[in-house]
């Protein structure tokens, strides 16, 4: 690269580099530093040990996993057949996508607030279910595990669905035609052609959705029992930071959060590689 060109590239990228280093890399290092030191600034692993040995805190990892994993699996398993069905486009696609992005755009706080009334004892959901004689007295949808799970599905499903749809509709439709002319049944085509080509997208959507679910915060507070069964790891981190004002502990929890997310993603990637060779997601043309 010529010197002049290098200068242009460097100068125009400088703002982004500064942003990235000071607002992302530095806070991360700062957090890592905080988590490994005590108030006197001495190196220590005490923060991690304290979190992992205190059952009240350590348990949040399991609580969060118990919410995040089922929510992720449900989202992916519901979204997959729907995205498969919609892969060649469908009537009213624009309207459907608009309705689907509504809960994503409005965000978890608004959805949680709405769910509290809509799914409450006098809410429409219970009224409808009772009118349909599915239940005979109001069912408790909120202030429990179910409430948080439902919130994660309402928020996560459209995200997973639209992402899976993006990946599957990127698979060249002539591949299916070619396979069917060669004698393959629908199920065979799905198993041998679509699924392997879709796998990178499924892995991506699963990982991202899990990471979102694992860091659930407002839904767990507003729709669950934040001091009991839905005391997720984010709540623990928040409480250490802003109720006990111990940023050392809070940063340690944030690091643990990041590690769990990383481990989950690695497991997903491992499964993917174990069963499927990595392929380019673009279609048959080279």
């Amino acid at each position: 690269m010529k010197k002049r060109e290098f200068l242009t590239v460097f100068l125009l990228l400088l703002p982004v580099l500064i942003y990235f280093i000071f607002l992302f890399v530095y806070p991360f290092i700062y957090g890592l530093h905080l988590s490994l030191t005590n108030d006197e600034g001495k190196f220590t692993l005490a923060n991690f040990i304290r979190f992992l040995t205190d059952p009240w805190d350590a348990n949040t990892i399991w609580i969060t996993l118990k919410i995040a994993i089922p929510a992720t699996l449900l989202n992916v398993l519901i979204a997959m057949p729907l995205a498969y069905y919609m892969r060649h486009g469908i009537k009213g696609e624009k309207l459907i996508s608009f309705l689907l992005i509504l809960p994503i755009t409005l965000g978890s706080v608004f959805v949680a607030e709405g769910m509290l009334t809509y799914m409450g004892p006098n809410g429409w959901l219970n009224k409808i279910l009772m009118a349909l004689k599915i239940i005979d007295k109001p069912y408790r949808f909120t202030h429990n595990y179910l409430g948080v799970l439902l919130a994660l599905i309402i928020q996560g499903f459209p995200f997973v669905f639209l992402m899976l749809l993006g990946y599957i509709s990127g698979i060249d439709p002539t591949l299916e035609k070619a396979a069917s002319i060669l004698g393959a049944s629908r199920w065979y085509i799905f198993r041998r052609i679509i699924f392997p080509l879709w796998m990178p997208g499924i892995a991506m959507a699963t990982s991202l959705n899990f990471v979102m679910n694992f860091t659930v915060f407002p839904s767990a507070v507003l729709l669950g029992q934040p001091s009991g069964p839905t005391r997720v790891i984010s709540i623990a981190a928040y409480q250490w930071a802003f109720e006990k004002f111990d940023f050392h502990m809070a940063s340690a929890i944030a690091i643990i959060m990041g590690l769990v997310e990383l481990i989950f993603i690695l497991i997903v990637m491992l499964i993917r590689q174990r069963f499927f060779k990595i392929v380019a997601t673009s279609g048959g043309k080279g």
Partner: protein
Amino acid sequence: MKDFKEIKIQNLVKYYGNRKVVDNFNLTIKNGEFITLLGPSGCGKTTILNSIAGLIPIDGGSIYIDDECIDDGKRFIPPEKRNFGMVFQNYALFPHLTVFENVAFGLRIRKFPPSEIRERVINALRMVHLEEHIDKYPRQLSGGEQQRTALARCIVTEPRLMLLDEPLSNLDALLRIEMRYELKAIHEKLGITTIYVTHDQQEALALSDRIVVLNKGKIQQIGTPEEIYSYPRNLFVAHFLGFRNIWNVDVIHVKDGEIEFKLGDFILNAVLNEKYKEHIHNSIRDKKKLYISIRPEDIKIGEGPINSLEMRVEVMEYLGQVRQLWGYINGNLRIEISTFEKIILNPGDKIKIYIPPERILVFPEEDVQ
């Protein structure tokens, strides 16, 4: 092996929305024939191919193989049960499978024993000269090699009918000619009945036993390459197969397959070919105006016994073997000539030319496309 006598497509109709993209398509294909559907893009040729494959539902008509109904709108054999083969324009190779697995795909579904699969795949790959690429992935192959893989995958299952959808259009010019030759050789060798779709008249002429020329969903002409090339039935076919110099003329009189007409200030004669007499005679009997067309290479330079004209040259192109002349006759009618004669002309030069009367094609006006 491919034990049927003929494939019969009758009154095939297909709509996209309100638009009729295939209008009463009728064609009978004999076992072993190489048929080409030729036409510009949007003429319905790919739709017909997909209908035959069973990839899209038809809106009317029927497709039979001998007495076996493949599709008549009610009875429908799905594509995977038809035992056809198809090569797609973009080849549609499975990107996550090796060349071997791509070719073996159809054989695995048919549950052949592994040893036979291996043998057949290698045979097919040998036929397209790809043995050494057997373990590569499609993205590691060149365009031509991908094309060959697609072809091998198509022939390996010994299909009853082979459908080729513009298979050469994504290749560069040299490779296209080479692959054309290979396609022809494979067809000669295996004798698989083939329907080939293309917009390239050269490919159609070179490969086919018979050509079906299509426009706007309608059949324009069915015939051997020779018939189509020399005796197009209407202006559309003529133009599509390289006839230029299409002029509107005033009829003076018509007699026994000879027509005298006025082109600008010139009086010219045309002699109708035997093949045409009937067809054209009926349609032009009372016409005052007609269209005529002459291939650029059929116009001769020099003084002729009849049909002599004077041309003002505007541009001369040197094309190696031939020279292409562009200019005007009668002041304002554009004319295009190609000649082997080694002449050198400058813009503005006037030359004598003549048109052999038997080379002139005559079309009634309603043929205008």
